[in-house]
């Protein structure tokens, strides 16, 4: 599997990220590091506890990371949940969580498949 195929599989744009980082090696390094990022787990856990303030920060971080890596689908869904939390629209945020989870798991799956 190529890095391009990995990006296709997780719903992101490899052209876009390479245009910003200029090096395939750097993209691969950052993508690999994403597996250790805990912002989705924090989002999930804090929402379950009803700690919406912390959930906002976690969503915000996840959105920023996804944006930087051009994980387009994950960026879109995490951005939506962050905006819902910013507006203190808690019910809507809870409804948006499954989509974020799906995009996150798809992203992690694609990266693991790429790494072999």
């Amino acid at each position: 599997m190529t890095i391009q195929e990995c990006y296709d599989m997780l719903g992101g744009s490899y052209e876009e990220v390479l245009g910003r980082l200029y090096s395939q090696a750097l993209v691969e390094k950052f993508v690999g590091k994403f597996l250790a990022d805990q912002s989705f787990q924090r989002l999930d856990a804090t929402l379950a506890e009803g700690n919406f303030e912390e959930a906002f920060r976690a969503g915000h971080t996840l959105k920023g990371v996804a944006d930087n890596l051009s994980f387009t689908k994950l960026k879109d869904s995490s951005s939506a949940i962050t905006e819902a939390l910013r507006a203190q629209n808690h019910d809507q945020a809870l409804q948006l969580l499954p989509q974020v989870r799906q995009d996150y798991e798809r992203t992690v799956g694609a990266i693991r498949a790429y790494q072999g």
Partner: protein
Amino acid sequence: MEQKKLEHRHKILVADDSEMNRFMLRNMLEESYEIIEAEDGLQAVAVLNKMGPEISLVLLDIVMPNMDGFGVLAAMNKYHWIEDVPVIMISAENTKVYIERAYDLGVTDYISRPFDIMVVRRRVINTIMLYAKQKRLVGMVADQIYEREKGNNLMVAILSHIVEFRNGESGLHVLHIHVITEMLLKHLAHKTDKYPLSQAEINLISTASALHDIGKIGVPEAVLNKPGRFTDEEFAIMKSHSKMGADMLADLPIKDEPLVKYAYDICRWHHERYDGRGYPDGLAGEDIPISAQVVALADVYDALTSERCYKKAFSHEKALEMIANGECGAFQPLLLECLMEISDSLREELAVRSVAMDDYQAMENVAAEMLQSKDLSSTDRTLRMLEHERMKYQFFASMSQEIQFEFSLIPPMLTISEWGAQRLGLDENIVDPYGNARVLELTGSERLEHLSRIVRQTTPEKPDSEYECQITINGEPRWHRIIFRSMWTSERPIQYIGVIGKVLDIHEERSRLMELEHQATHDGLTGLLNHRAAKEVISARLGQDSSQEFALVMLDLDYFKQANDQRGHQFGDGVLQHTAQRLCQSIRRNDVAARVGGDEFLVLLECNGDPESVVDRIFQTVRGEYEGFPISLSMGVAETQSGGRSYEQLLHRADQALYAVKRNGRGHYRFYDNSMEEMLSVLSPIDNAGEESQ
């Protein structure tokens, strides 16, 4: 890669709660910069507090736990860090109000997400370059102030005071040497690049010049202040002062300080001559450090143009002529040229310079140096060296026993450097230190109040001051010097906002100096005050309370010469020590005893009524015998009641009364009366051969 490591790398603080983001920025920048990470706002503030302007740039996220990016910016404004450390915002937040608020709080630039590696690197380098120039100027000034502050220390003040005290020279000698040395060095640096001398080095050498004669503390007073020609033996003793001074400095615990190193060279070699005919080592030519060469020339010039106990003052012109003719030994021709070229300004300068003008001069020097360097890019190498020096200073400060602190008034908070907090057994951050029990335990509330009084006396124009007190370290009270600068708002109304400073442990230094001062004011054999100190102490007591009456007793051992002649000098010394001991036993706490001649002693008695009973007790206690040697004494007494109150008047009358006793067969005492007015003097020099001379 090895080359990269040796270069000075700018430090960038990355404050972002996402490890992923920090990881990305680190990877983009770490090839050219040193990256420091902070996981939230509080950590970022702590790093800034600790490293200050060492940080070249902050990359700041806005949405963070504990303290957000706006909180960090607020703190940076409050402590004025934002003036020295630029901030680039890196938030994923791109709402317009957020960005505007960040600019209002002083951020320099904004990098939006997603990151473009070229944009990140370009913005970072632009921002750092812009601020670096400004910061280097600040660095140059700090360097200068650092050297000055170290130069103006207690050691120089006390040591040079001691030497003058014993030499009977006015304080002007030390000041003159300072001025002449500084002028010669400046002219030399201007005239030739044979010696690379920076302004800071010139300041240090000039300050160190004050110590050139400290070795004289080891020269006996009889030799030091002898009016006539020296015998060969006396000259040999006199000559030993240069090496002795150097040895004293080599023993100091702070001997590695640049100031002390210069002082060592100067002490040891300021009597060497360019042709190798000086002492103590007979160095010639450039083997003599330039600092010592310059001070040697300054010393000769000032000695010629000043009055000394063995000579009159020569005129400026005559002195220059004598030096040029080689009458005071050989100097480097280049230095002689310098002296001749600054001749006119030297004479004027010496006439007008006073101690108070000294600091003003130093400021002018800094200003001149900065003007010279206005094209900073062309002197980049020099500036890098300065930066390097500053790094070295910071490193050594962290290695040395130094406690650095900052106190802010609102909120009342004391921040102490990591090493300092550990040394003092305090937390690094203390809210309301005046109410903190641990802080009070260290100094006591009285000293803390004294310190805050001194702080309140500073002004925005004169913000620097210092305070010496004992601080309890691990249960042991130790002397410390607190050097500080008060901080003020830059806008009107100007208000006091806090203090920065450091605490130096000066315990060893101070104990040693106190010991030296004791040596300078006391007779080495008997431990009593020496003649000069006795005069000071007695004069002060006489002037203190005009209603208190005193009696001055002059005491002389009869036939003391026989003790020396028959049983040797060591036995003679024993007699003197025994006498001093008995004398101390017979006087009261407020009385003053001194040894003022070979076998002559002086006692000042407080009189509350007739002093005869005390005088008699002294007489009876001291007389008797010492190891088979009969001790007989003669005493002359003068009272303030019966005449003038000055030390000289009293001494003169006691001296005459003593002479009257000696003429009438010795072995008794008498009070001064008018019949003794025409009597001669008994007082002999202190050299254990007293009764032979005069």
